[in-house]
């Protein structure tokens, strides 16, 4: 299959790639670039495990073709910690025990990050609504919500 030139900016780094048009952004991130932190749980847009941030918005990367992401700025779970410091959301997930197997965690953290960047001032109900597209089978969500609320609070007080 003919490959197409694609330029992606991922976690601040430029990647010039030749990719098959049938490859999803998820496959490009995981297989072509080797960023395996983003997970595949369904490849049908239903679980949120593959969530990354594209131009500031949380996106399920299994539902995006790699070629259509050309020129976009993408942040994955690997790009969240800076200068060896965890992002407050990452720290909050650790502190509250917001994960068990950890497979949904990259997706939840990226979805939460996009939400708090947009507006950290949300109620528990609003966060529940906004995170309804991410499935976690392990935690029952209680400690995930505690993590997100704790991180949002910290981001609010620090800004």
């Amino acid at each position: 299959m003919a490959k197409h030139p694609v330029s992606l900016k991922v976690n601040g780094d430029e990647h010039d790639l030749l990719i098959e048009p049938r490859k999803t952004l998820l496959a490009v991130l995981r297989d072509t670039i080797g960023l395996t932190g983003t997970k595949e749980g369904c490849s049908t847009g239903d679980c949120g495990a593959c969530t990354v941030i594209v131009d500031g918005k949380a996106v399920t990367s299994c539902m995006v073709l790699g070629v259509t992401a050309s020129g976009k700025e993408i942040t994955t779970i690997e790009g969240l910690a800076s200068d060896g410091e965890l992002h407050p959301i990452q720290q909050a997930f650790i502190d509250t025990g917001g994960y068990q197997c950890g497979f949904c965690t990259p997706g939840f953290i990226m979805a939460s990050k996009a939400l708090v960047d947009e507006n950290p001032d949300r109620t528990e109900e609003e966060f529940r609504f906004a995170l309804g597209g991410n499935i976690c089978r392990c935690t029952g969500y209680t400690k995930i919500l505690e993590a997100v609320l704790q991180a949002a609070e910290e981001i609010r007080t620090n800004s």
Partner: protein
Amino acid sequence: MSEKKEYKVIGTRPIRHDGVDKVTGRAIYGADFQITGLLHGRVLRSPHAHARIVSIDTSRAEAHPGVKGVVTAEDLPAAEDKMADLGEGAVSLKYLCDNILASDKALYKGHAIAAVAATSPHIAEEACELIDVEYEVLPPVLEVRQAMESDAPILHENLRTSSLGETGDKPSNIASHFQHKKGDIDKGFDEADVIIEREFVTGTVHQGYIEPHNATALYNPDGQLTVWCSTQGAFTVREQLAEILQYPISKIKVVPLEIGGGFGGKINVYVKPVAALLAKKTGKPVKVLMNRADVFEGTGPTPASYITIKMGATNDGKITAAQTSLVFEAGAYPGSPVGAGAMCVFAPYNIENVVIDGYDVVVNKPKTAPYRAPGATNAAFGTETVVDELAEKLNIDPLEIRLMNGAKEGDRRADGPVYPRIGFIETLEAAKEHPHYASPNGKKYHGRGIASGFWFNIGLESSVTINVNPDGTVNLVEGSTDIGGTRASIAMQAAEVLGIPAESVNPTVVDTNSIGYTAVTGGSRTTYATGYAAYEAAQDVVQQMKARAAKLWDVDEDNVQFADGEFSSINGKEEQISFRDLSARLGETGGPVIGRATMNPAGAGGAFATHVVDVEVDVDTGKVEILRYTATQDAGKAIHPSYVEGQIQGGVVQGIGWALNEEYIYNDEGEMTNASFLDYRMPTCLDLPMIDAVIVEVPNPGHPYGVRGVGEVPIVPPPAAIANAIYDAVGIRMTELPMSPDRLLKAMGKI
């Protein structure tokens, strides 16, 4: 509660040793594994629920550019009539192998038929479509009562019912029937003033782990087979591979990578032997990944069941008799968890007269696999609903009737065991004292329900070694894959013994060549049994280090004691040295210290839980909203309370999904019609409130810190608790799971 012990590490909440890896994307799960020269495998699956395989022609697939190898059941060693022992009794090797790649018959839609290895996943997928399989389609049977009919389509021509020691003389879908009896059932019902008898049906549900199954296999020319994968137990994978491939265990190494959930569903192997066959055929490493539809259609769901429960009680609330018939679907091959269901069905109650009949029935669905307290949730749905009805008829509070009849130390369960110290009553008391139970409940269409549950927990083999580092930290090596924080809960037990912080223990989960045999992470055994092994290995370290201190001080070993992280000499010399300082002096006192322990502890100690739930029923749509949920559970001793709470909350929510939404939906051809996360609806955070987990601690006499397994029992009560709450809200007894809006509307007579 018995005497309170003071602990330094046990009962605290340190962060997980794998915490940073899991929030930064660095943890390597099965699908993330890379190795040079990797090929990609894809499995072709049966489109039919029941069909004879007439022929398979792989030639077009083999000729497809980029394809490196194709395998079918012919590549498996001939398995006819052999029995395999996987530690839980003998199972037919043919059944095991046929579930990996079907030989003569496809027994469910999604049954693996053949597999391709190619240079890319896309090519492998294309090549699967080029495999020509001729099927003779047969009528499927999907429901246990139909499968038990004498004229039902037969799955296995050679399967005969084994019933109470006798073997049937003609083919049947009933694989087995067993019975437990206690007391005199007729006498028990004669003594009863009220008798309730009900039928229950539960749907087929899936464990629903978010990470699909995966395996990467490599056959070296020297015959060494290595498999990297996500699994609940590297050693059980090794055993299954050895049996299925008829290959020496000494030539197989299984490397467990991080696992994205299992809940019992990642014990049986599916694509691991397929990856091994493809690796052998191609001489290259091959990675096989399932997609979500493969997971639903090709891996073990947990069984649907048909259950009758009959219970009798006197006017003052004493339950005098209980009888049940548990009919569980096994899926395509025998082996449902009906045995475990039978152990749990009346376990919370001390009832003098009991009869339990269990049936294991094959149907045209994927072979079932364990799912968190396998069998117990189905059974408790029946029992706990009937107990609720008895309470109502007798005008007794539902918690009170449970308190009156609840099992205690010394009581004997119907299947035999006598309880050691257990904490069922304490969970009931905790529920009764919780503000939730006292809070108002009376709004229209709002209801409150109670239910309890039991899971026996298991021990099994675990091995741990502990290497002492010169800086006073230790490296703990274990074989239990960590699904939810057990690196921490195991390390903490070693830390407590050694008098060092949890952070000073570095736990590592290793492959099957690097540690002694360790059974699966399952049965709620890991914090209990591997934790116990860590405790013993740490004691071994202490013993050896006492000898080193004795050498340093030139005293008798018996004159060295260890407490609070300090070695000191008693009798005569005033000497003292900390664990840390002595760790730096191991070289001069005889070389490194390695503590070791292997165990197979018998005193797992059962776990009980009692749940209280408030619901609101939308009588126009049939939707049930969970308003408030409180779960009390006896953890024995919570090593890491946050992670115990997490287990409880997670189990509760899986139980809520089972209760309200989750089920395999089939069409008449026997095809699952909802094999996606969109259509198989698991709970999201939008569907739930915060789950209040209340830990009760009645120490388990079978563990040095009193640990009981906590992982499984929280899934047991929710369906019954919610059914009881729905009854309280709208006066309808739901006897079928899931209690989805359509079923509720039907039950209310609205459609």
